[in-house]
């Protein structure tokens, strides 16, 4: 007669070990609980889940019903009645296959339930088997005079570190790491365990099964088959062609193949199969890796070796015992009718199982803490049923006993408190001077300069600078270094760049052709080559916008004596230093006018965005664009003697505008297009710029009183001021050129005035914040000027 052992892997191992040395041969066999169920009640067709899916059952429900269905009889309850009908259907179609000969076979032998399995095996099944006169015996493990210690803490890290020290002591006294187990480490505990164990440098091995579902290979496979129309057989080749990269993947692939092979002959489509497949994959686990020389960290309560040391953490109300709720497909009332395990019975069994386990471990320490940084816990009710030989409440870790690494953590946290609030904690007093902590807060994020020669070499001795890269430098030199020297990529919104290029292109051609339609269409063609519906919609929209701005620009031309002379005009200045610097720029539009011997120029830059002109920041090298352009003019032989009549931004793409009383939309747009910038303060010159200047013509805010003087709010500027501004610009340019030579790229974002730390100008839109690790002390705060105060005295 064969004895069928139902045992946990550990018990099986122990039994086998016992027989290894014995000279007797015993006739026994280990079977799993599932195997016993199959031998006693029966099995299901491989395709069961799929068949059930066709009948409207989710795979998980179908799976849960596997055991229940054997017990279903005809009942009044509607749900059970339906299940009964289902059962009849499954039997008729040979999807459900009751055990026949296996059951008979079992009757001739003996079923022996080992240790804790008595709490896992459903009671009703045992009853059924007994009724069928199957011999059932129990095998109790040796029970010990278990000594359970119990400790209470107020903080989770105290708990784990105290246990950690216990582990170290045990290790020192000769216990192998493999014999030490941290149990009941639930997910909210695991992170903290890892923290402390890492600090104490105790090697650990987390006992965890992870499903193969989240493996890249499997996810890729699932993505790939998502849209396959056709029968499931199409997958066969796909699976066979998969190439695993390592053992781990090979194992998963075999498991996938195995799942598939169960269904591969069925008459179904890939689409129908996916739900079942995903369910199966989620419930199929990766090969577990055995690790040695490490303590085990287990989320459950599990018995390993007999002589081993167990630490049951987290002895709290939620986990000890865990509570099952009445959430199954069949509710408790229905379960009662079918005489299967109810929730209460399940909970009771679980509790018994835990108590059994705790009393069958020789050396156990249970511990509990009332809180973690994230949550609070309550004590377990099981405590009342456990006999502990040693109970210590309010344990405070003894720092003398602890390990240097953990002490470093404690001292460092105390130093933090001290530096933040001047408070000296207990640990501060105890550990300072006895714990190595010289590296505390030693990390420096500052830029340490790089070798100048190396930089020259890197740049092949030359570098191109533009107005905007210079602007970046003044925002933050390190940002400049990353963007313009190392060229670390940034993600940019595609549409913004496209709009800019598109508009500039059209406008540069505008004055050279007669037909604006034509030049827009030409540009449009180029951009619409690879566009989708969305792009072409917006291109049409831009086209409309362009027509508007173009007509406006034409109108503008009629009111001025200035002639559009240059478009997209390139300028270049050379700085012949060790690193040769080419300073380059492109001016969107230059208008000129000659009065006698004197030529005047207007410089215009088109803006599709919202940029505003603010000369007050020029002192810090910011917003220098138009002044830089003037600087170019001044240093160009052709323009050397030209006087500046004005410099402006021209916004060419208005956002949707709000209704304004007494204004048509068209009028609002016209106002929007007005030139925005500074005008030479000579009234006579202004009349050449704009015939209609008296009526507030084409320059924003340039209002003139009846007696022909400018309003105080008008943005006018005299030559002297321009020259002084240009001096500043020149200084700034030279500074940057020199700083580059010196490889000076310090982390120093600029903050204007009272800007909030998280919104400072220097870091606005910067994507390198995770490279510089900026600290508040790195920020350079400067005074925010108004009305060009930095020039001394008010602007005129």
């Amino acid at each position, binding site marked *: 007669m064969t004895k069928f052992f139902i045992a946990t892997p550990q018990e099986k*191992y122990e039994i086998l070990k016992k027989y290894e040395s014995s000279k007797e041969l015993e006739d026994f066999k280990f079977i799993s609980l599932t195997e016993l169920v199959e031998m006693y009640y029966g099995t299901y067709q491989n395709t069961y889940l799929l068949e059930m899916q066709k009948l409207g059952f989710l795979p998980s429900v179908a799976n849960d019903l596997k055991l229940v269905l054997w017990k279903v009889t005809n009942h009044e309850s509607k749900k059970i009645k339906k299940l009964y009908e289902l059962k009849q259907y499954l039997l008729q179609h040979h999807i459900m296959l009751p055990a026949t000969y296996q059951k008979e076979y079992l009757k001739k032998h003996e079923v022996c339930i080992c240790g804790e399995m008595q709490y896992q095996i459903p009671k009703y099944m045992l009853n059924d088997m007994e009724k069928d006169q199957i011999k059932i015996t129990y095998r109790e493990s040796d029970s010990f005079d278990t000594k359970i210690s119990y400790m209470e803490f107020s903080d989770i890290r105290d708990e784990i570190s105290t246990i950690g020290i216990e582990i*170290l002591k045990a290790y020192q006294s000769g216990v192998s790491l493999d014999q030490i187990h941290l149990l009941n480490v639930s997910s909210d505990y695991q992170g903290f365990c890892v923290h402390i164990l890492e600090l104490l440098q105790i090697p650990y091995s987390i006992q965890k099964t992870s499903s193969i579902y989240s493996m890249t290979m499997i996810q890729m496979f699932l993505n790939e088959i998502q849209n396959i129309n056709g029968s499931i057989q199409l997958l066969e080749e796909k699976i066979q062609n998969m190439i695993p990269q390592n053992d781990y993947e*090979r194992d998963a692939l075999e498991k996938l*193949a195995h799942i598939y092979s169960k269904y591969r002959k069925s008459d179904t489509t890939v689409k129908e199969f996916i739900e079942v497949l995903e369910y199966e994959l989620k419930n199929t686990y990766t090969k577990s890796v055995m690790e040695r020389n490490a303590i085990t960290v287990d989320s459950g309560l599990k018995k390993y070796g007999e002589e081993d040391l167990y630490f049951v953490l987290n002895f709290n109300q939620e986990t000890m015992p865990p509570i099952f709720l009445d959430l199954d497909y069949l509710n408790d009332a229905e379960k009662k009718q079918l005489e299967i395990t109810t929730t209460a019975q399940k909970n009771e069994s679980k509790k018994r199982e835990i108590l059994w386990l705790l009393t069958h471990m020789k050396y156990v320490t249970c511990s509990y803490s009332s809180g973690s940084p994230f949550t609070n816990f309550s004590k377990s009710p099981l405590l009342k049923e456990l006999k502990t030989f040693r109970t210590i409440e309010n344990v405070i870790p003894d720092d003398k006993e602890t390990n240097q690494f953990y002490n470093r953590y404690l001292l*460092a946290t105390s130093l*933090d408190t001290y530096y933040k609030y001047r408070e000296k904690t207990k640990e501060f007093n105890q550990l300072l001077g006895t714990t190595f902590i010289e590296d505390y807060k030693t990390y420096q994020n500052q830029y340490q300069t790089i070798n100048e020669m190396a930089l020259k070499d890197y740049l092949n001795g030359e570098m191109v600078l533009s107005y905007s890269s210079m602007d970046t430098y003044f925002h933050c030199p390190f940002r400049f270094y990353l963007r313009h020297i190392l060229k670390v990529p940034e993600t940019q919104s595609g549409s913004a760049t496209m709009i800019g290029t598109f508009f500039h292109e059209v406008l540069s051609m505008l004055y050279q052709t007669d037909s604006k339609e034509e030049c827009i269409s030409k540009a449009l063609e180029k951009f619409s080559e690879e566009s989708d519906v969305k792009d072409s919609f917006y291109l049409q929209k831009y086209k409309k916008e362009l027509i508007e701005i173009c007509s406006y620009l034409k109108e503008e031309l009629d009111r001025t004596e200035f002639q559009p002379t240059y478009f997209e005009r390139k300028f270049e200045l050379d700085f012949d230093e060790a690193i040769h610097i080419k300073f380059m720029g492109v001016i969107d539009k230059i208008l000129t006018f000659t009065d006698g011997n004197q030529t005047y120029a207007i410089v215009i830059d088109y803006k599709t965005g919202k940029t505003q002109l603010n000369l007050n920041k020029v002192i810090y090298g910011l917003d220098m664009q138009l002044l830089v352009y003037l600087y170019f003019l001044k240093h160009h032989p052709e323009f050397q003697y030209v006087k500046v009549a004005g410099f402006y931004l021209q916004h060419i793409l208005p956002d949707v505008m709000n209704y304004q009383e007494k204004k048509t*939309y068209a009028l609002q747009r016209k106002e929007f297009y007005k030139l925005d910038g500074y005008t030479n303060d000579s009234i006579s010159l202004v009349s050449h710029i704009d015939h209609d200047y008296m009526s507030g013509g084409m320059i924003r805010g340039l209002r003139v009183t009846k007696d022909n003087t400018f309003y105080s709010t008008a943005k006018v500027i005299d030559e002297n001021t321009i020259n002084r501004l240009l001096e500043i610009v020149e200084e700034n340019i030279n500074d940057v050129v020199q700083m580059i030579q010196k490889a000076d790229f310090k982390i120093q974002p600029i903050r204007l005035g009272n800007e909030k730390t998280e919104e400072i100008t220097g870091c606005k839109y910067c994507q390198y914040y995770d490279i510089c690790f900026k600290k508040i002390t790195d920020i350079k705060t400067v005074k925010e000027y108004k009305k060009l105060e930095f020039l001394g005295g008010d602007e005129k």
Partner: protein
Amino acid sequence: MKQKPLNSTWTDEQWEAIATRNTSILVSAGAGSGKTAVLTERILEILKEGHSILDLIVLTFTNAAAKEMKDRVKKKLEDAIKEGYTSLEPELQKIDLANICTFDSFSLNLVKKYHYLLHIEKDVKIGDSICIEALKKESIEETFHEFYEKKDKKFFTLLDTFTVKDDTKIKDIVLSLADSLTSRIHIEKELEDCYKKINEKEIEKQLDIYVDEIKKQVQDAFLHINVLLKDAPAEMIPILESLKEMLQGNCDNYESIASIFYKLQFPRLPNTKKLDEDIQVKVKEIHADVKKEFQEISNQCIYLTRQEYIDEVLKTKDTVFILKELLKSYFLKLQSKKQKENIYEFHDIGRFAIQILEENADIRKEYQDRIYEIMIDEYQDTNDIGTYFVSMIQNNNVYTVGDVKQSIYRFRNANPNIFMDKFTHYKENDGGKLITLSKNFRSRKEVVDAINFIFQAVMDEKVGGVHYLNQEEMIFGNQEYEEIKDKDTNYDLEVLDYNYRDSAYDKVYKKDEIEAFLIAQDIKMRIARKEMIKAGKTLRPVTYSDFAILQDRKSSFDLYKTIFTYLEIPITIHKEETFYASEVIYTVKSIIQLICCIVNHKETTKEVIHPFLTLSRSFLGGVSDDLIFQLLKRSKQMKMSIFRCMEEDTDFVVLYEKLNVLAEYAKTHTISSLLREVYHVFHIYDAVIQLGDVKVNSDKLVFLLNLSETLETSGYDLNEFVRYFEQLQDSKLDVSFDVKKDTDVDAVTLMTIHKSKGLEFPICYFSGLTKEFSKKDYKERFLYQKDMGMITPYFAEGVRETFYKKLFIRTNKLEDISERIRVFYVALTRAKEKMILVAPLSDAPKNKPFVNVVLESIRKNYNSLYDILKSIKELFTVYTTKIDLDTIHLTHDYEQKKLEKLDLKVTNMESHTISINEKKKILKHNTYSHHPTKISFEDMDKMEFGTKMHAYLEMIDFLNPVESFQLLNLSSFEEKKIKAFLNVEFMKNIQDYKIFHEYEFISTTSSEESNGIIDLLLVGENDIIIVDYKLKEIEKPEYQTQVRGYMKYMHNKLNLPVRGYLYSIIDETYIPVEQ
């Protein structure tokens, strides 16, 4: 109703709330009225009556509250059992199964239980906000794509009207509308309704509401003028008279109001130059006042006729239509994505629960029949979804308890109107019974009185939500306080008033600094004076932990902590930390990115340089910028990938090897394992010491690890983990987590008012009152509101807004201010023995006189808690203590880094250290079996056949096979195969052998432990036979080795000669195996 026991300490109202049965009940319970005690007592009474705890549903709004409630009930039961109610024993056992939980977890359980009815998987999870955000982003992109592809005309018109550069704006609008819709029960229906509501009749309804308020204002103005006329200076009389005449009889119809107020020209100020100065002032004041009042009315009269208002709303019809369509499509896509990953938000779960109940009358009925009572605590915090949900399972058996004055969670969709509706109905015994608990047992009479006079003056139905006066006043109830009282301690309300504006201090110190110093000094003084508070039946002197400082916001918490520590007063603060934006997480992110690059062979500079720079510059990289630059230079010049350069560079090779090892590890491990390994390899928990802020940084690392575990179960692999980080970066969302305060220390508590809800402290300070309420941004143009539906602008010579928007702002502003007043109420009711308000009241002008209640127009414009105090300044006169700032020892010393220079050197290494030098190693478990190399489904079929044959061979009685054949119902092929086996040579004389099937054993040698299973083991007296069944290919050497292992083991064990055979079932042949 059961009689109140004679010795009971419950008040009659409390007892009524405990013992009333067979009806729905609303208990309107003021602060400190013992509502939770009453609720638990009621539960106990019900259980004593023989009902089961499982027949009750007790709902709360936070997990902490649920936990506390459960603990209280448990304690009550234990006590009752001790007192002899042994019949309650089983109820105590069941307590963990009881439905004492939050609304959210109750609905989650319902959904888990009936998940199959919705055809979703049981393990529904609440999604991490970043993951949900990612799904939303994908859904909106797909929705827009769909509408572009459809070339939907209305869609294009929408884009054309409201966008210029791209469609981002409209995407954001759809997302934000979707967000406001999530608190609704039937989203799709409401969306349809939005569109249907754009008709004259519905708009008229809203217009009536809009106009009613204007009418009321006109009436008020009229009354006001009449009052003014009584004693206004003569110069003002003609103006007032003319205004009066204007209004006379013109207040009840919009058109006549509009004829006056539309583009109103208010009469000019009369010439007052010749008058006395005080009359001048008075004239100006009255003129300004009335003008303001008129102007406000005028601002609301946008059109002359009602029809114009209606017409403008009608113009939004197409916009509403297309937005509705976009939203519908978006929700559909989002829902299917959520379903795929089985992650949801709580409001989804709430709606699912409702759907289950709506569609399944039997489930609804089951609850209605089975549940004895549904109890809801803090009912003022209920929301629409929860209320609807309860309405479906109730059966005139809902017991609700709360205090509408403490409703402060509107930002989490709490709707205090639900409470008020019930209140109004139940008051008239319509649908249930109203019980009011107005006795306050928490606080001293002085505290209760002060709260009453403050809120009488500022809280009414219009502003605040309830009529405080006569209806909601608290009645002092704890007489013990009157008996236990120290004659030298002043329990009255105190206002610590200081003069700030134009003082010597306003340029030098911030108000927060002054208040912190002031409170600190005050606390010290009270302790020094040994002020007494009640402790049980006696008095005891105050200690630090008796004091709490409550503030509306936590912006100055660190400042307080620093100042208090400087002044040597222990203080604990409670605040949250954010997770993502920090050096430590950026660094870990860069490591994960680099590992991902290695694993995916993405090694171009473009891909690698950013994370490379992050890591090398970080505390874990620790490489100088110069060295980094040298490496990048080499990479550029030699055209070599950054990784290759690292490999060859002595300064980087260690870093590279770590990454490489981790990349190898990543190939065979999940993301959480990988992350743990990253922490391990970089000794990160120790390394963070270099950064400081060690606890917070460690917590963040723990948080990230927990997060990775969660993501992993949703199927996240390495690539998706990297994308998760990117999403985190893009969405600018951050996850914040609570950092718990230390407990059990004698320290002053500093916390926000919201956090303090439900708690009580002997002495409370209220400071930081001058901080302005965070300004709600009403710039949003596209809005959703449940009565008006979708509020959108329209285009006519520019973008214009309809009166709906004005109505929306009007209601919302009022509700916001009402909520702020309630927040103040919550704050003040925390105090047990004494309240101390700290504010620069001296700076405030004398408040305007009022009778009973402060003028609505003033309250409607409250902008800080300080404004509330200002408006009732006169009430505080007797309670005010003027503080001379010269006496509170203000100093900036606390912020100077006058910290003693710490010597961090080790001077004395006392503690002994135990350390482990062993390294973890990975064990490859040895078995005697082996794996095939290529997937072959044919082989799999064979294997299945093999398994079956193994089973048959195990079950067949070798000595009496024929009988077994019948039982097993074998096919003829199978029977033939088995017969063939039984006929082979070595099976012929086995009658005397003991037969073992599938004999399992462990064999240990010095180097390894192996596990084996012998298919067939025959043990005779003189020898042993071992057979291993194979399907085919029995010649394979590895099979031989396997059997040889078995033979060796058996030989050693039994010391008998062993014969071994490999048998091929298919070929019906065998070969002997040599020892």
